[in-house]
C-alpha cells in the first residue's frame, strides 16, 4: 500500500525502454513504405514472429490478473489460462494460413478479398476499432496501477509515460519496431516466469502464522460469557473492553466483535466463528480493516496509513495453516508434489466485506478463512465462475458462454490477426503460430505455479490483487522484483503497441482509403497512419486516466465477446462456404457487434460495475452476463440467412 521507489526497477525499465526506443529509431530508417509500416515488409523470421505473438497476446490481464486471481481464489484463474490458450487452436487450424493467403495489411483485407466492397471495409474497420479500444482501456489503467509500486509516481504519470513511449515506438517504425518490442517482452516474460517458478518449487511450503512482516495473526477461544462481562479479559487478551456494535455494523453478512485496548485506546476488529453446537466455545480471529474517511484519508486497522510510529499498513498475508502429516516444512518440491501436497494442506485465504457507516465513512473488513487445499484446487470459487457451483441453469449457461467466447475470441482479435502479414508466406504463418502456442502454453502452465506460489508466499497485499506476482518476486529477491515489475510494465508496452497499430491500420486502410475512397500515395498512407497512431495513443491516455478508479479487467472479457461475435462468423464462413455474399458479411459483422455490445450493456455485470446499480433492486434485462453463447451463433445465422437471400436476388 505504501510504495517506495525501487531504483533497481527503474534501472531495469530504463534499459529496456532505452534499448527498444533506440532499436525503433534505427529500424525506422528502413520502414518508410506502407508495406514496411504495417507489415514489416513481410520479412520477420517466423520464430521471432511466434515469440512476438506471445508478447502481443500475453497482456497485463494475463500476467497480473490471472496470477492475482489464482493467488486469492485458487484454481479459477487457471480457467482463463486454459480458455485463452484454446483460442489459439482455432487460430492455427482454421484461420492462420488462409488469413495470410487472402489479406495484405488488415483482417478486413481477408474478408474483402473476394468482393472489393467499401461496406465490408467500413464494418470490419469499425469493429477493429471497437474491440481494440475495449482492450486498450484495461492495459492503460494497468500501466497506471503498476507505476505506483514501481516508480512511486501517481497513476496519471504511468498512463502518460506508457502512452508516450508506445506512440513513439509505433510512429518510428510501425510493425517493425512493434514486433521487436513484443519479441523482447515475450522472451523476458516467459524466461523470468520460469525462474520464479523454479524458485517457488525450490522453496517448498512452510506453515506460518502470518505474512513476511513477522506479524502473527491471533485467534482467541472464548465463551459467550467472556464477551458479555466487563472483566477486561477476552480469551488470552487482558485489559480489553468489548465494545457495543458500532453503527453500520448491525446487518453485516459475517459477525464481528470490536475490542478496545484500555492502554492504547486502539480498537481491533475480530471475526466471529460460531461453534457447530450452541454452548461450545466461540473462536475469534484477527481481522484487518481499511477505513476510508469522508476527507479521503485512509485508516489501517484504526491508525493513519503510513510507516512511521503511530501509523500502520496492512499486514501482508498468504500462508499455510497446516501441511499433511503434521509437517511444518517440505523443502524443495517436484512440480507434481507441489499440487499433491497443497491438495492435502490448509491455506488461510482472506475474504472481505464492505460496511457503510452512517457518517458515510466506508470500511473494508478483511477476515481469515481457513480453506482446505482440495477446495483451493477446484474450480468454482471466484465470483466470475460461481456458476459452476450454482443450481441455477442460467449461471451454468453464463459459464459456458464465457468459455465459448475465450475459445472463439483469440482468432478474431484484430491486433493478433495483423501479425500474420509480417511473415513471408503461409508456411511461416503456420510455423510462427506453432511457436506462439508453445511459448504461450508454457507460460500458462507457469501461471498456476506463480499464482499458488503467491498464495503461500506471505507477501500478498489485501488491497491489490494485481500485485500478487510482483510481490511474490519481492519476497524472493529484490532484483527479481525489479525485473518482474519492469517486465510487467513492458508487458503493457508490447500489447498496447499492437493495439495502436491495429487501430491505425483500420483507420488508414479500411476506413479512409477503402470505405471513404480517399486517394493516397504510399508516403501519404504512412503519414496518415502515423497521425492516427498519435491520435489513438492520445485517446488511450485519456481513457486510461478517466477509468482510473474502475476495476476494468472485465473489459478484456468484453473485447473477446465482441470480437468473437462480430468477426469470427465472417472469417470462418468466407473460408468454408462459397455462397457467402457481401451483404451477408456486412450484416453479420454489424449484428454480431451490436448484439454482443447491447447484451453486455444490459447485463447484470454492467449494471453493477458500470452503472453502480444493485441488481437485487434493479434486475438486469438479459438473463446472464456473457453474450457469446447467444451472439456468436446469431452472427453465423445472420450471415447464412442474408447470404442466401441476397444470392437469390442476384441469381434472379
Amino acid at each position, binding site marked *: 500500500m505504501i510504495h517506495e521507489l525501487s531504483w533497481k526497477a527503474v534501472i531495469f525499465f530504463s534499459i529496456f525502454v532505452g534499448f527498444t526506443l533506440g532499436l525503433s529509431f534505427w529500424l525506422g530508417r528502413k520502414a518508410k513504405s506502407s508495406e514496411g509500416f504495417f507489415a514489416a515488409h513481410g520479412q520477420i523470421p517466423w520464430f521471432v514472429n511466434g515469440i512476438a505473438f506471445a508478447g502481443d497476446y500475453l497482456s497485463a490481464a494475463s500476467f497480473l490478473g490471472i496470477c492475482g486471481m489464482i493467488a486469492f481464489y485458487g*484454481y479459477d484463474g*487457471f*480457467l482463463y*489460462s*486454459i480458455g485463452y*490458450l*484454446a483460442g*489459439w*487452436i*482455432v487460430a*492455427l*487450424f*482454421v484461420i492462420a*494460413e*488462409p488469413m495470410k*493467403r487472402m489479406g495484405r495489411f488488415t483482417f478486413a483485407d481477408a474478408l474483402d478479398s473476394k468482393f472489393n466492397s467499401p461496406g465490408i471495409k467500413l464494418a470490419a474497420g469499425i469493429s477493429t476499432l471497437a474491440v481494440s479500444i475495449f482492450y486498450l482501456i484495461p492495459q492503460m489503467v494497468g500501466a497506471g496501477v503498476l507505476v505506483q509500486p514501481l516508480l512511486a509516481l501517481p497513476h496519471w504519470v504511468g498512463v502518460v509515460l506508457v502512452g508516450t513511449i508506445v506512440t513513439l515506438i509505433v510512429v518510428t517504425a510501425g510493425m517493425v519496431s512493434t514486433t521487436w518490442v513484443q519479441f523482447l517482452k515475450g522472451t523476458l516474460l516467459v524466461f523470468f516466469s520460469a525462474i520464479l517458478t523454479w524458485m517457488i518449487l525450490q522453496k517448498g511450503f512452510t506453515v506460518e502464522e502470518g505474512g513476511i512482516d513477522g506479524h502473527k495473526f491471533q485467534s482467541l477461544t472464548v465463551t459467550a460469557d467472556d464477551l458479555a462481562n466487563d472483566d477486561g479479559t477476552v480469551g488470552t487478551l487482558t485489559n480489553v473492553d468489548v465494545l457495543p456494535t458500532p453503527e453500520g455494523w448491525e446487518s453485516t453478512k459475517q459477525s464481528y466483535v470490536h475490542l478496545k485496548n484500555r492502554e492504547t485506546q486502539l480498537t481491533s476488529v475480530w471475526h466471529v466463528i460460531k461453534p457447530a453446537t450452541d454452548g461450545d466455545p466461540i473462536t475469534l480471529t484477527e481481522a484487518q480493516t481499511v477505513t476510508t474517511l469522508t476527507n479521503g484519508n485512509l485508516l489501517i486497522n484504526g491508525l493513519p496509513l503510513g510507516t512511521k510510529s503511530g501509523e500502520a499498513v496492512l499486514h501482508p498475508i498468504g500462508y499455510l495453516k497446516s501441511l499433511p502429516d503434521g509437517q511444518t516444512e517440505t523443502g524443495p518440491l517436484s512440480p*507434481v508434489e507441489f*499440487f*499433491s*501436497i497443497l*491438495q*492435502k494442506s490448509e491455506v488461510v485465504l482472506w475474504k472481505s466485506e464492505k460496511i457503510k457507516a452512517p457518517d458515510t465513512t466506508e470500511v473494508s473488513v478483511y477476515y481469515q478463512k481457513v480453506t482446505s487445499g*482440495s477446495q483451493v*484446487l*477446484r*474450480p*468454482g470459487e471466484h465470483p466470475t465462475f460461481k*456458476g*459452476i*457451483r450454482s443450481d441455477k441453469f442460467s449461471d*451454468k449457461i453464463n*459459464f*459456458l458462454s464465457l*468459455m*465459448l467466447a475465450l*475459445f472463439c475470441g483469440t482468432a478474431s482479435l484484430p491486433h493478433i490477426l495483423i501479425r500474420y502479414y509480417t511473415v513471408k508466406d*503461409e*508456411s511461416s504463418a*503456420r*510455423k510462427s*503460430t*506453432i511457436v506462439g*502456442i*508453445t511459448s504461450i*502454453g*508454457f507460460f*500458462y*502452465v507457469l501461471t*498456476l505455479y506463480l499464482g499458488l506460489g503467491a498464495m503461500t508466499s506471505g507477501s500478498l497485499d489485501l488491497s491489490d490483487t494485481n500485485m500478487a506476482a510482483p510481490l511474490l518476486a519481492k519476497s524472493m529477491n529484490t532484483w527479481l522484483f525489479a525485473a518482474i515489475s519492469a517486465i510487467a510494465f513492458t508487458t503493457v508496452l508490447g500489447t498496447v503497441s499492437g493495439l495502436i497499430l491495429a487501430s491505425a491500420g483500420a483507420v488508414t486502410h479500411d476506413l479512409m482509403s477503402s470505405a471513404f475512397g480517399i486517394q493516397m500515395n504510399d508516403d501519404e498512407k504512412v503519414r496518415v497512419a502515423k497521425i492516427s497512431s498519435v491520435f489513438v495513443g492520445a485517446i488511450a491516455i485519456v481513457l486510461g486516466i478517466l477509468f482510473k478508479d474502475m476495476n476494468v479487467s472485465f473489459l478484456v472479457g468484453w473485447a473477446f465477446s465482441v470480437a468473437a461475435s462480430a468477426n469470427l462468423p465472417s472469417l470462418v464462413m468466407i*473460408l468454408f462456404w462459397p455462397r457467402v455474399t457481401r451483404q451477408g458479411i456486412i450484416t453479420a459483422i454489424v449484428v454480431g457487434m451490436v448484439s454482443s455490445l447491447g447484451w453486455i450493456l444490459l447485463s447484470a455485470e454492467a449494471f453493477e460495475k458500470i452503472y453502480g446499480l444493485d441488481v437485487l433492486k434493479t434486475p438486469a434485462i438479459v438473463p446472464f452476463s456473457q453474450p457469446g453463447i447467444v451472439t456468436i451463433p446469431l452472427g453465423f445465422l445472420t450471415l447464412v440467412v442474408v447470404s442466401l437471400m441476397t444470392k437469390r436476388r442476384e441469381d434472379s
Partner: protein
Amino acid sequence: MQSRNSKIGLVLFTIYLIVYGGFVFLNAFTPETMEATPIAGLNVAILYGFALIIGAIALSGLYGFLCREKSSSNNEEPRA
C-alpha cells in the same frame, strides 16, 4: 496442398474441440468430478487443465509436422 492442410487442420480442430468441450461441460454440470484425485494425488481439474494446454502444444506440433511432410512431397501437384 492448401486443401490438404485445411483438412488436417479441421480434423485436429475437431479433436481439440471435443476435448475442450468435455472439460467445460464436466465443469458446468458435474463439478464434483473435478475434485477426484485419480493419479499421483492430483485432482481432475489440474490433470485435465494441464492436458488441454500440453495437448494444444502437441497437436500444433503434429500439425506442423504433417503439413511439412505434405508440402515437401507434393510440390509438383497442381493446386486444387
